[in-house]
């Protein structure tokens, strides 16, 4: 599971240029897609959001979710929202073990 304290510099080659950084990120396993922004750092503080949420920049990685749900049932969803600086944001995940 991604360490919420992990920064981009810790997962990138030390000699990475901006171009190679982007290329490197594209090939990270989805679950290792580190949230690189402050807002996503917050998201990672909640366990529920670390394993079943789309990565930060969707162009970098494919969505991550392997849950299989029965049709004609319902799914429990939970998440959190924050209204920072007039720009509300929320993040959701399935309620249950990942």
């Amino acid at each position, binding site marked *: 599971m991604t360490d919420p304290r992990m920064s981009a510099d810790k997962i990138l080659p030390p000699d990475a240029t901006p171009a190679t950084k982007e290329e490197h990120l594209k090939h990270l396993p989805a679950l290792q897609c580190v949230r690189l*922004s402050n807002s996503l750092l917050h998201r990672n503080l909640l366990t529920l959001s670390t394993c079943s*949420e789309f990565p930060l*920049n969707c162009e970098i990685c494919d*969505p991550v979710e392997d849950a299989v749900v029965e049709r*004609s049932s319902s799914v429990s969803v939970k998440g959190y929202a924050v*209204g920072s600086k007039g720009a509300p944001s929320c993040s959701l995940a399935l309620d249950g073990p990942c």
Partner: protein
Amino acid sequence: MLTVPSRAGIPIASVRVALVPLPTPHHDSLADCEVHQVRLHAATLPAEAWIDAELDAGPAASAGASEGKKKQWGWTLFSTQVPLDSALLVGAREAALVAYATDANGERQELQTAWNLRGVAEASWGVVKVKLAPEA
């Protein structure tokens, strides 16, 4: 006791969640990735397709309550049950759950944050994908 409101925190008034069968119809956009297409499609859904999530008011605070009780810190947890409408999901093997928040000032979460390498200030609508059990 004197309370000092946060300079930046604004209470969340609502979070709405919708179910989107996949794949979605293609919408013209600069970004062609799946999650962005899901968000664009969700934005076209009628109001009745969205479910208001239950907000966790937290201790001694309540989003959307009277001014004195509005929470002054950022987080608002939410939860809800999203029915899987079998008629809506006919032929679909996957679906996405999409959510957006609205704050107490009526500001709605932005649909899609402009891409940047470090993902700074990312605040796009939340999306999570699920696989659907095979149809009987």
